[in-house]
């Protein structure tokens, strides 16, 4: 790539040819406001918030998509530019439902931030308000068309990133709306509930369906025993909601806060991640030894499961029959734990704090119930938990607490489930020890780590080669799945996570604005918190977790893969239509 010399606001800068004005300005230390632009997700230059003057160009240009050429002179602020940006912003505001005070995105809304930054003190225009109703047909995601500003970031997430594309722009001009075809609701189409649209939305048009009230009611009910568990990725991001730096784990603060909120016991989903590894590892070895359906594909990500049911039903036999970790834990808590602790299972309310919106759908699956009791009763996203903590007035950063022990002991292998490649690495740690009969010291499988879309590795264990692949984000997963379908992919074990980066970047995680996400890879930053917790763990292999092996298996289930384990920890899948 050749370098070009340009000036921005009189400042000389040298950048690669083809760099956008937005990126070049950033390199020169100049910030240009954006709204519809979300790097790698939506780059369409539609909202006109980033207008700049390029000397010699016919009109003001959108900095987010305008590639620089040698000799460009660019101005990012002038009366004409400020007025053009502000007018466009006022037009967007003219028909936006401005219920900021009661909006879930209050104080974390990019439209609000821009209004403040551009000094909008009155809105000259009065647009016809959209009268479309709120779409709450999905059990995971709620869509409010009256707050939508039609920036299309959600459409980019759903189509470009996830390759699902169940929403798009409908109609044109002032009556444009974003949604599924033919006026259907998100719950009526082949949406996988991943929530990537939610974390892409700059405003409050897309949110999770909240279970906060139900959980508060349960916590307040003296007849209920409310058991809460937290997924590994939650600790890696919840601190962001309370001003902690991105990538810093807040495990002890989170547990401390949960105890202060009145939950009876706080468990670590990592415990059941270890359980998952024992079951899934056993399943893999059995399929390899008995010519079963291969590759075995992981089943932890409920967005991926629903995707498989809708779009690749022919590959359902490849899916591991393992329930996802929190569902396994839910089942164990209402059986073995209830027995041990002398609690009537009917009184137990299981709450899962998840980085995920798809888990809200998952916990309501009829196949994840026993005797009319759901394994997990409520799923809250990381964001919902943060709201509840704020509601209590708890000083989060000063909280301190420890997960329930020893029942809730967990290994480092369980922690890394939260990042792409983590389940694969955790499984390999255990499978390698089982196949060699040794306690291997080389346990970091770095080939499967990182944010590359598809990762492949061939692992030599005891003279046997296990070929594996890891994909995250459904767009990447599709490439792997098509190769499995065609027979070109000869892997034995494949990990798929619905969200890009894995659970750390799940649809239920704290929402960082584009002004952060465009310049920082959240997936990699949050994963650091996960891997550092793994490195600091005393136990780093699932099969060395004594509370799982001695407790749950010896005390209750028998062997991994036993009939009892199958009954409690495994599930079934259902082919679904694409329309």
């Amino acid at each position, binding site marked *: 790539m050749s370098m070009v010399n340009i000036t921005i606001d009189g400042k000389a800068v040298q950048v690669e040819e083809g760099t956008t004005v937005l990126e070049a300005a950033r390199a020169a230390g100049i910030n240009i406001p954006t709204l519809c632009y979300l790097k790698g997700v939506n780059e369409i230059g539609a909202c006109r918030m980033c207008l700049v003057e390029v000397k010699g160009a016919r009109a003001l240009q959108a900095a987010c998509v305008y590639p620089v050429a040698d000799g460009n002179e660019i101005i990012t602020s002038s009366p004409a530019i400020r007025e053009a940006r502000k007018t466009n912003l006022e037009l967007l505001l003219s028909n936006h439902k401005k219920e900021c005070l009661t909006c879930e995105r209050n104080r974390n809304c990019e439209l609000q931030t821009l209004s403040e930054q551009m000094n909008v003190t009155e809105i000259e225009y009065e647009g016809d308000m959209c009268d479309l109703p709120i779409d709450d047909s999905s059990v995971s995601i709620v869509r409010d068309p009256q707050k939508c500003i039609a920036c299309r970031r959600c459409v980019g997430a759903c189509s470009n990133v996830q390759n699902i594309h169940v929403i798009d722009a409908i109609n*044109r001009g002032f009556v444009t709306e974003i949604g599924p075809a033919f006026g259907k609701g998100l719950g009526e189409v082949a949406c996988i509930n991943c929530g990537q649209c939610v974390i892409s939305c700059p405003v409050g048009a897309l949110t999770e369906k909240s279970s906060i009230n139900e959980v508060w009611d349960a916590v307040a009910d003296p007849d209920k025993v409310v058991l809460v568990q937290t997924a590994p990725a939650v600790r890696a991001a919840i601190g962001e909601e309370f001003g902690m730096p991105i990538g810093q784990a807040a495990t002890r603060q989170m547990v401390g806060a949960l105890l202060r909120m009145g939950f009876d016991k706080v468990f670590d989903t990592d415990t059941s991640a270890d359980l998952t590894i024992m079951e899934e590892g056993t399943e893999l070895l059995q399929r390899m030894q008995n010519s079963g359906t291969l590759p075995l594909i992981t089943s932890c990500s409920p967005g991926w499961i629903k995707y498989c049911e809708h779009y690749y039903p022919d590959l359902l036999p490849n899916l591991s029959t393992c329930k996802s970790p929190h569902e396994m834990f839910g089942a164990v808590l209402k059986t073995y734990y209830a027995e041990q602790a002398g609690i009537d299972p009917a009184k137990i309310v299981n709450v899962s704090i998840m980085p995920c919106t798809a888990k809200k759908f998952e916990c309501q699956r009829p196949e994840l119930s026993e005797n009319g009791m759901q394994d997990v009763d409520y799923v809250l996203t990381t964001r919902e938990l943060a709201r509840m903590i704020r509601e209590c007035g708890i000083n989060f950063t000063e909280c301190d607490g420890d997960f329930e022990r020893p029942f809730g002991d967990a290994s480092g292998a369980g922690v890394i489930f939260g990042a792409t490649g983590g389940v694969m690495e955790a499984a390999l740690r255990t499978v390698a020890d089982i196949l060699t009969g040794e306690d291997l010291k080389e346990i970091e499988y770095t080939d499967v780590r990182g944010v590359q879309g598809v990762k492949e590795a061939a692992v030599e264990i005891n003279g046997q080669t296990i070929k594996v692949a890891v994909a995250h984000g459904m767009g990447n997963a599709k490439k792997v799945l098509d190769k499995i379908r065609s027979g070109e992919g000869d892997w034995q074990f494949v990990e798929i996570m619905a969200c890009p980066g894995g659970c750390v970047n799940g649809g239920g995680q704290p929402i960082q604005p584009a002004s952060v996400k465009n310049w920082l890879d959240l997936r990699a930053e949050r994963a650091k918190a996960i891997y550092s917790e793994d490195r600091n763990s005393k136990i780093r292999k699932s099969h060395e977790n004594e509370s799982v092996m001695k407790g749950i298996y010896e005390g209750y289930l028998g062997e991994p893969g036993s009939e009892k384990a199958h009954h409690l920890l495994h599930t079934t899948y259902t082919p679904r239509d694409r329309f």
Partner: protein
Amino acid sequence: MSKLRKVDVTEEQKKKILEIVDSYKDTEGSLIQILHDVQDYFGYLPIEVQEIISDAKKVPLAEIYGIVTFYTQFSTQPKGKYAVSVCLGTACYVKGSGKILEKFEENLGIKAGEVTDDGMFSIDACRCVGACGLAPVAIVNGEVYGKLVQNDVKSICDKYRES
């Protein structure tokens, strides 16, 4: 939340639609042309027809629906036995065709893009039909009515009602 009328697409119709899709298999960017051809054949593009195209062409339904609702030439509703088309091109518009359209909507009790319950009439707003000298213009099943005034609308509608 959806109020969709169920449309039966016969096997023969489906076969023909698939033939149309297939005839463009070597042409990049042919979706809009396919939609035109299928609409010419089927008359309109209901969800059942769009699903067939989506499946065959491997293009998401939301994307197809987005295109169909963007361009006014496409319709998700069947046309009436008498298809009224009011020109909203520049010349007709400045000559008051907006009011003419309103009169048709009022007289027939439907909005542009809709069809009456008995299937007799549908109304569409179209762009310039090339008869600016006759502005404002409306066309009913190919028959052109020019230099319209608002009072003409009732008699035009009645003429087709009685025929």
